[in-house]
């Protein structure tokens, strides 16, 4: 089972080159922290109080990176908004940390600074395809074929939208319809109000950070 941040990390990797395409580093820099916060929220660890992110449950998740960030949030004395955490968690080392985790799980193989999907992905051995392929196919089926979405699917689609990275999953002719469908999915009651509020604030923080960087 992949976390949200692992899925978000896999999607921009070019299948042929094994590197992240140009122009995606910026959105990922803020998108990955957003995905980590969304993961913690979906696992019931974070909540929102008066627009500030608070720890709702300090129990470890069992995921090394999520627990590292959760500890950081627990130790923090002053509560902060999502916009603070998206920037505070972001670092140039974060992608390498995630890649190492995926390599240890046998999802990726690393060749110097290039990453290639391990084929077949152990969870779906019926086809010779990478984990990235299956992540994309799930998102495509949810949006284009009305497959019932999981919470993680909607959270990931919303993050991709906030990062302007829906083009990693959908072709040009699909994107307008996709943007509308993603907005509809995210505005539905799939999460429940409490979780939706946290995720909305995370998405807004990511969008604002990505937009600010793009404008500079």
């Amino acid at each position, binding site marked *: 089972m992949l976390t949200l941040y692992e899925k978000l990390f896999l*999607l*921009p*990797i*070019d*299948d*042929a*080159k094994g590197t992240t*395409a140009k122009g995606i580093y910026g959105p990922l820099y803020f998108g990955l922290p957003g995905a980590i916060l969304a993961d913690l929220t979906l696992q019931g660890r974070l909540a929102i109080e008066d627009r500030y992110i608070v720890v709702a449950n300090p129990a470890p998740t069992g995921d090394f990176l999520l627990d590292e960030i959760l500890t950081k949030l627990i130790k923090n004395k002053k509560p902060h908004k999502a916009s603070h955490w998206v920037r505070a968690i972001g670092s140039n080392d974060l992608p390498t940390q995630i890649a190492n985790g995926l390599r240890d799980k046998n999802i990726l193989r690393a060749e110097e600074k290039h990453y290639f999907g391990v084929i077949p992905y152990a969870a779906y051995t019926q*086809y*010779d*395809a990478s984990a990235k*392929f299956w992540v*994309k*196919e799930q998102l*495509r*089926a949810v949006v*284009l*074929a*009305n497959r019932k979405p999981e919470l993680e699917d909607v959270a990931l689609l919303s993050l991709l939208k906030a990062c302007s990275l829906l*083009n*990693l*999953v*959908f*072709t*040009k*002719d*699909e994107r*307008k*319809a996709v943007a509308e469908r993603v907005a509809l999915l995210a505005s539905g009651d799939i999460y429940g109000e409490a979780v939706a509020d946290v995720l909305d604030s995370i998405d807004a923080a990511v969008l604002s950070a990505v937009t600010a960087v793009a404008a500079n």
Partner: protein
Amino acid sequence: MKNSLTIFENLYILALDDEEGKIVESTENAMEAALACAVLAELYLQKRIDLIEGRVSLLDQASLDHPVMDLTIFSIVEAARARKLRYWINSLTYKKLLAEIPNHLVDCGVLFRKKKHLRAVVPYRTASGEEILAKFELKQHLREIVLASGQPDIDEMVLLAVLYHADLLTLVFTRGERKAAAKHIRNKIVENDSNSVLGPGLDEIVVAAYRSEE
């Protein structure tokens, strides 16, 4: 092919912009020649035409109950002499036969017209009973063939080869996949051990519009 449509109909569906209700604007030029190649490839597969020294010859003029293919057969019958592939590709484009493709898709219930816009009929019921868009099913299948080592049939290989030669892989594959997809199609379909797995006739047809004449 997973559905019962022809190669050129599937190509048309792939290029149909869901929102605009017409062919994706950036592909319009490439699509004319690609559709013409696909019509000729379909006739070749249906054993209606053959290629003799680069010229199209008629094998069987029996109707296929399809306006585009039947009109093409009629044109070939009417021609005074056997013509080169390039002639027929230009001719199909010039005669606007390809404009008949969406009309037939409307007649078949795959598309419908709303004012001047073409829309996919939703739901389109697949052979397995699922209710999804014909276009989604097709794209998903082509993506599985290329990105997940699925087994293509000959129609699917022709369609992928046409998309490859016409530089239309953007219709199926997203950013980050296209180079790998092109490499896969080149290695497995177009130039398998220096020979095309399509065979010499089909290979000649799918590249005819893109190869400079000697």
